[in-house]
C-alpha cells in the first residue's frame, strides 16, 4: 500500500483526473473531497459492500425461481415509446 502524508487542503492526484483533497480533520474523522470523472463512482466502502452483497443475494435467490417464473414473463414496453 502506498502511504502518503497530507495536511489540510493538500491533495492527492490519482491517474490524471482523480483528485482527493483533505478538507478537514477532527479527532479520528477525516473529511475528504473527491473529484472524479462521471464514469467513476465513489462510495463509502461499507455502503458499497452492503449493496454488492444485497445484489448478489437478490440474483442468487431469483435464479432458483427464474425457470418457473420465465413462462409468465413478457417484455415490458415503455408506454412513451
Amino acid at each position, binding site marked *: 500500500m502506498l502511504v502518503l502524508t497530507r495536511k489540510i487542503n493538500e491533495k492527492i492526484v490519482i491517474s490524471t483526473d482523480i483528485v482527493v483533497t483533505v478538507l478537514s480533520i477532527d479527532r479520528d474523522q477525516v473529511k475528504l473531497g473527491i473529484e472524479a470523472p462521471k464514469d467513476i*463512482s465513489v462510495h*463509502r466502502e461499507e455502503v458499497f459492500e452492503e449493496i454488492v452483497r*444485497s445484489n448478489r*443475494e437478490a440474483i442468487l435467490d*431469483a435464479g432458483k425461481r427464474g*425457470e418457473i417464473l420465465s413462462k409468465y414473463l413478457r*417484455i415490458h414496453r415503455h408506454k412513451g*415509446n
Partner: protein
Amino acid sequence: MSEGFVDINSLEVSEKDIINIKGGLIGMPELKRFILMEFDEDSPLHWLQSLDDSRIGFVVSDPSLFSDNYTVTLDKRVQEVLEIGKDDDLVVMVVVTVKGEAQEITGNLLGPIVVNAKKRIGCQVVLEDSEYSTEVPLKKMVDTSEKAQKTMVEIMV
C-alpha cells in the same frame, strides 16, 4: 437454451427494449444490458433480465411496496450519467430479495435502480446519506389507491 432461466435468445428484443445500466450493477460491472419483463399488467413486481448473462435476472418493484414517500436524490454525476433532459421520465425500481423458507420479501432501498425511460439509460444509485437499508421488509398493507406512496426524485442542483 442454457440451463433454466429465461431463454433470452428466443425473446424478440428490439433496441428500444434494452435498458443500458451505466457502469453495470454495483459490484457486477459486466452486467450492463437488461430488459424489463412483466408478470402481468397490474403486477407491482417486474423482472429485470440480463442480456449479458441469461442466468441472471431478479425481481424489481415499485418502491411504494416498501416505503411511503420514498425519496431518491440524484447528484450531478448521476444526472449526467442518466442524460436527464427536460421531458424525460425517470422510473425508480427497487431490487427485491425473496429469502428462505418463509419467503420473506425485502427491498433494497439504499441502492435503487433509476432509469431514464425515454433514453433507456439506467444507473444503480447509492443513497449515501440516507437512512434507507438494503433489507426493508414489505409493507403490511399494500393499498395502491393511497396517493401518499408517491416516490420522489430530487435533482440536486
